[in-house]
C-alpha cells in the first residue's frame, strides 16, 4: 500500500502517453500545431475514461427503469441529482465539516509522522526498534479503534475524528519518509564525503530531496485514508451534520437517494483532495515531471 512503487507504477503509465504525444508532436511543423496536437492527445488520453464513466451512468439510469428496481434498492442517477439539489444545504455543511476533520487529522498525522521520521534519522538503533513496530501497526485495521477515540476525545468533538485520521495516516507517512531519508545511494554519500559535507548539509541537500517522492506517495495514500477515517469515525456517532451521520441516518430512513448523494459528495471531495496533492507534488518536484518525457 504505502509503497513508493505504487507511485512509480503510475508515473510509468504516464510516460507511455507522453511518449505518444511527443512522437505525434515531433512530426508536426510549427510549435503551435505541435502544442495543439499535444493538447488534443491529452484530451484523447482521458476520453476512454470519460466514456466509461458516462456509459456507466447511462446504463445505471436505464437498467433501474428497465428492471423496475425499487428506489430503496438502487435509486437512479437522476434521483441522486435531485437529492443533491433538495438537500444541498445539509450536504454542503456536512461535507465541509467532514473535510475539516479529515484535513485536521491529516495534518496532525503527517506532522507526527514526519517528526518521528526526522528524529530517528541519526539513530539506526531507534529506527530498528521503531520501524518493525510501525510496519506491523500499519497492517492492522486501525479504523476498528474508532469507538475508543470517540470515547476518549468525545463523540461530538471533531478532535475524536481527527485522532482516528491522524492514527491512520501516521504510519504510512512515518514508514515512507524514514525510508526516503535513509535509503540514499551509497555513491551519493561518498560524493558528499569527498566534499567533507556536514550531516546537516547531507540532510538538507540529499536526504530531504531524496525523501520527497516517498513523502508524496504516502501523502496520496493518506488523503484517501483521511476521508475514510473521518466518515467511518462518524458512523460511530457524532454531530448530525457530517457525511457519516447523513449516510447512516438517511439509510435508516430508507432515503437512499440522500445516502447516495452523500457518498457521491464524499467521492468528489476525495478526488479533488487527491488531485490537489498531485498538483503540489508536480510543483515541488519538477524533476519528476522530467521523468515522464522530453516535453518543454
Amino acid at each position, binding site marked *: 500500500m504505502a509503497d513508493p512503487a505504487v507511485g512509480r507504477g503510475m508515473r510509468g503509465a504516464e510516460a507511455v502517453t507522453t511518449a505518444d504525444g511527443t512522437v505525434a508532436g515531433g512530426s508536426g511543423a510549427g510549435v503551435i500545431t505541435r502544442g495543439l496536437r499535444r493538447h488534443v492527445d491529452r484530451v484523447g488520453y482521458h476520453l476512454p475514461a470519460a466514456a466509461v464513466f458516462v456509459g456507466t451512468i447511462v446504463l445505471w439510469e436505464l437498467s433501474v427503469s428497465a428492471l423496475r428496481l425499487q428506489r430503496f434498492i438502487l435509486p437512479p442517477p437522476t434521483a441522486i441529482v435531485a437529492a443533491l439539489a433538495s438537500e444541498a444545504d445539509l450536504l454542503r455543511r456536512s461535507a465541509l465539516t467532514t473535510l475539516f476533520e479529515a484535513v485536521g487529522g491529516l495534518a496532525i498525522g503527517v506532522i507526527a509522522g514526519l517528526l518521528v521520521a526526522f528524529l530517528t534519522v541519526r539513530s539506526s538503533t531507534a529506527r530498528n526498534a521503531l520501524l518493525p513496530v510501525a510496519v506491523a501497526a500499519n497492517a492492522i485495521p486501525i479504523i476498528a479503534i474508532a469507538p475508543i477515540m470517540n470515547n476518549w476525545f468525545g463523540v461530538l468533538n471533531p478532535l475524536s475524528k481527527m485522532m482516528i485520521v491522524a492514527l491512520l495516516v501516521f504510519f504510512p507517512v512515518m514508514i515512507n519518509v524514514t525510508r526516503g531519508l535513509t535509503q540514499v*545511494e551509497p*555513491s*551519493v554519500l*561518498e*560524493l*558528499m*564525503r*569527498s*566534499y*567533507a*559535507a556536514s550531516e546537516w*548539509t547531507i540532510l538538507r*541537500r*540529499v536526504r530531504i*530531496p*531524496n525523501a*520527497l517522492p516517498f513523502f508524496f506517495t504516502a501523502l496520496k495514500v493518506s488523503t484517501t485514508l483521511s476521508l475514510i477515517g473521518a466518515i467511518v469515525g462518524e458512523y460511530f456517532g457524532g454531530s448530525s451534520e457530517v457525511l457519516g451521520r447523513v449516510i447512516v441516518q438517511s439509510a435508516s430512513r430508507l432515503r437512499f437517494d440522500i445516502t447516495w448523494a452523500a457518498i457521491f459528495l464524499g467521492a468528489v471531495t476525495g478526488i479533488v483532495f487527491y488531485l490537489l496533492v498531485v498538483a503540489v507534488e508536480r510543483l515541488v*518536484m519538477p*524533476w519528476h515531471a*522530467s*521523468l515522464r518525457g*522530453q516535453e518543454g
Partner: protein
Amino acid sequence: MTDGGGSAGETRAVGDPVVSIRGVHKVFQVADGRTRALESIDVDIQRGEFVSLIGPSGCGKSTLLRLIGDLTAPTAGIVTVNGKPARKARLDRDYGMVFQAPVLFDWRTVEGNVRLPLDIMGVRGRERDRRAREMLELVELHDFARHYPRQLSGGMQQRVAIARALAFEPKILLMDEPFGALDEMTRERMNSELLRIWERTKTTIVFVTHSIPEAVFLSSRVIVMSARPGRITNVIDVDLGRPRNEETREQERYFQLVTAVRESLRGRVDGETPVASPDRTMAEGTIG
C-alpha cells in the same frame, strides 16, 4: 611550452610529494573470505604531476584512488596528502573526485549539479553562477543547463560530473575512468581540454583509465598495475614534450611508449622496453 611543461623528471624533482603512499595494503573482508585488493603499494606523486593508473579490471585502481581520497582506509600503511593525513586533506577539501559512475542528483538541473560543490563550499552569487556556466561551456553542455540528468545520455551525464569536479578548482583531481563512457572524438577533445586545464591550474591529477593511448597522451607518468593481489608492476615515465596535441599522437616516441605500456600490462617487462627511468625517486612495488 608552459611552466608545467618540461619532462616529468623536472617536475618531480621539486618539493615534497603531494601524494605519498607508503607500504599500503588493502584487504576487503567478504562473505567467503578476504580479497587482497592492494599489496605493498609505494607511490610518490609530485606537485603538478599527471599520473595515470592502468591495469586489468579488479586490480585495485579505484581502491587506490579512494584511499588517496580517504573514502576508504588502508588495512596497513600510510597515505599522506599535501603533507597531512589523507583524512585531514579530505576535511580541508584538497581534492575533487570524478567517480566511475556520474553520481548526479536527480532533483538538480545540470547547472544545479555543477553548482553543488560551490553551494556546499559557500561560493555564492555571481561568482558561483559564472564558474558553473564556464564549466558547462567547457564540457559543451551549456545548452542543457536547465535539463535534468535523466534527460541526458550516459556520456553527457559523465561530462556533467567532470564539470562539477572542476568547478571548485581543487588542488588535486582524482579521476576514475572519467571518459570511459564517451565516444572516441569527444574523448580526444576532452583529453586536450583536460590537459589545458591541468596546465593552466597547475593542479595534480591522478587518472584511472583502461585506454593505453589515453594514458600515454595525458600523463607525465603511467603506473601499471596487476591483479590479485593488486600491485604496481611498472612505472613508465612519459617523456613526450608539452604542450601535447594532435601531432603528439603521430610521434615515433608516442608509439614506443604505447607499446611499452602494453607490454608491461601483458607482464613482459624485459630489458628491451624503450623506457629509461633510472632516477625514480619513488619506490614501486615489485616488478612482476
